[in-house]
């Protein structure tokens, strides 16, 4: 993979002058990101439908295409041709802007992710920080949608979402930091290389396990998934912040939700499960060589989709929390635990007790 991208890069810089070459690279990457965004949306929605079907004793979609794989495509086509309604009385600018903000945020955070060995859009040296910082911007889009809709259900949903995302970001961030102090780097590629002799979940002792569990809980809440889907809470607020949206504007919220799940799961896989790094124990063993035969992209997507499956499993099993219970859980339990956990991780890092 590294070779192909390097070759394209070299050829572009040899053929065109640097500015144009860079612009062409931007265009290619932009197209790829949009393509990936759409593909992820389709794949994950199909996956969610099948996972829920299995859990609910149903078959799931099975009419459009073999095993119903084109069902989501058909649904998306239907949403595209649907009228993009803008109700009377809404703040027209914010109402129409909100889905795009949510979508753009979801796309931008794809940039520093490392999908396979040497396959990364932007190897920024503050990669983890970038992802956590940018992904929290999506709350602006949600608040905007809720406020602009001029609907009380939307407003309540947006306010819940705001409180929820802002709180859970803290413990998500702290649990990420537990790995960062062990790695000593915010750069995703370095975090992955640091796991060459074993993933952090195996060699990080107790603090990393705690951090991993807290991370999974916190990102489930951050992406507004059940049992923390209070922003949507269809039995209470009909559809929460996107009650008034229809057509493609609704679809953008929906796609962005799934891409956000992918991003946080990819981040979790990178930090705790070694990203594209195959399952290694120690260095230079025969076991490691066998594992290296499996392509790195398979490792990355395998881990990510496993985490996504876990999050979907939550959704189809648990009832929903109440807003005060949700905030209690974060401020009274998760945050103190992850703070102490961070100290513990720092202590282990200083004593060099990790493998």
């Amino acid at each position, binding site marked *: 993979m590294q070779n192909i991208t390097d070759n394209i890069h070299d050829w572009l810089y040899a053929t065109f002058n640097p500015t144009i070459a860079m612009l062409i690279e931007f265009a290619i990457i932009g197209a790829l990101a949009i393509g990936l965004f759409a593909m992820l949306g389709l794949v994950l929605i199909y996956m969610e439908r099948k996972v829920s079907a299995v859990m*609910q004793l149903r078959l799931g979609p099975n009419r459009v295409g073999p095993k119903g794989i084109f069902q989501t495509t058909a649904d998306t086509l239907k949403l595209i041709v649907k009228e993009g309604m803008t109700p009377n009385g809404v703040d027209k600018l914010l109402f129409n802007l909100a889905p795009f903000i949510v979508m753009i945020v979801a796309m931008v955070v794809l940039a520093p992710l490392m999908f396979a060995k040497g396959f990364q859009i932007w190897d920024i040296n503050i990669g983890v920080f970038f992802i956590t910082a940018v992904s929290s911007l999506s709350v602006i889009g949600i608040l905007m949608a809720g406020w602009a809709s001029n609907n009380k259900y939307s407003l309540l949903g947006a306010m819940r979402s705001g409180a929820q995302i802002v709180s859970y970001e803290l413990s998500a961030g702290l649990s990420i930091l537990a790995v960062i102090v062990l790695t000593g780097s915010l750069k995703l590629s370095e975090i992955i290389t640091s796991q060459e002799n074993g993933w952090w979940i195996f060699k990080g002792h107790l603090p990393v396990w705690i951090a991993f569990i807290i991370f999974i809980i916190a990102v489930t809440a951050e992406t507004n998934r*059940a049992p923390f889907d*209070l922003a949507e*809470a269809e039995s209470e607020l*009909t559809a929460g912040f996107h009650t008034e949206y229809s057509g493609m504007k609704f679809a953008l919220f929906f796609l962005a939700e799934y891409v956000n799940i992918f991003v946080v799961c990819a981040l979790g896989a990178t930090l705790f499960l070694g990203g594209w790094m195959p399952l290694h124990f120690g260095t230079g063993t025969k076991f490691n060589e066998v594992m290296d035969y499996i392509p790195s992209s398979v490792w990355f997507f395998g881990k990510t989709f496993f985490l996504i499956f876990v999050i979907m499993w939550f959704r189809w099993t*648990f*009832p*929903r929390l*109440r807003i005060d219970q949700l905030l209690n859980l974060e401020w009274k339990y998760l945050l103190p635990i992850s703070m102490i956990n961070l100290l513990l991780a720092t202590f282990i890092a200083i004593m060099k007790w990790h493998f």
Partner: protein
Amino acid sequence: MYRETSIVNESTPTPFSGNGESDMIINVGPQHPSTHGVLHLIITLNGETVKKVEPHLGYIHRSIEKMCESLTYRQFIYVTSRMDYLSAHINNHGCALCVEKGMQLEVPPRAQVIRVLMDELTRLASHQLWWGALAMDVGALTPFFLAFREREMINDIMEETCGTRLTMNYMVPGGVMSDIHPDFQKKVHAFIDHFKKKIHEYDELITDNIIFQNRTKGVGYISKEDAISYGMSGPSARGSGVQCDIRKLYPYEVYDKLQFDEIIEAGGDSFSRYMVRIKEMKQSMSVIEQLIDNIPEGDFQAKTKAVLKLPKGEFYSRVETARGELGVYLISEGGTTPYRIKFRSPGYCNLSALDHMARGQKIGDLVAIMGTLDLVIPDIDR
């Protein structure tokens, strides 16, 4: 929204009025996913906290009571299937009992047992649907499908014997419309065996779930005295410790010969009301097990004239539906149609206690409380 000005009293400011008070008024319904029908609630909120709940009825009023006045004593029974459609058979039962009381008709033992069996199957089906719907109200979607897995078996049994799945119309004054299907006993046995094996899933998924327990324990409390003064009945009242099972207090048909417990939980909160229904399912199963192999031989219907006439007078009968006490009050002038009919439906009184229970709770709890009350709106509006 158009009602806001008329509903809010003078001192309450309008939403977002900015004069210090932060009341927000939301119309929940008539079309809303968790009102289970066309119930319209006007809730006054302070942030997420419910300050007042005002139910508005009438969206599915079909004047069933008035319609009954122009139908004969054989016909009017079947209109009541559309009241509480989840316990349609039990509604019919109440009406049939009332007519039989008026005519002083003796129901053959076989018909009595079949009626009770069907009653309990209906109650099971209703409680299963309630369980799924309540789980959906608190945000878990999967239980609904598990509940339907079992409910479907009951519906199949009903379909075979009664001809329909939901509105059975199986009652006639003096017995039941036709004899049971030859496969009836076998299928009921199969269902009981299946449900006994599966009922632990109900507990694992919802009852023992820590999130669910947190959502329901101590929420929506109503004391025994308040429950009585609001006229609550059925599992909702038994969750507050009120002894009100009509099957025990005023036994009809063969209920006095059966061994079953009246489930009473003293908690008075949502979780108690939940547990009452879960335990009632097990009691219903035990009732079915006692009867299914002991259906006496004989007629399934008493001999009656083609046109029924009730003597002049007033008649009242009551049955325990899946939701509580259904009273049928009938005035006869001696003709072939009732002069006046009044139904005392359980849902109406249970709904009236909603405001009392929901005050001070969060919106999410309001939905959960409504779920534990097991409201069926066509039963309330009639």
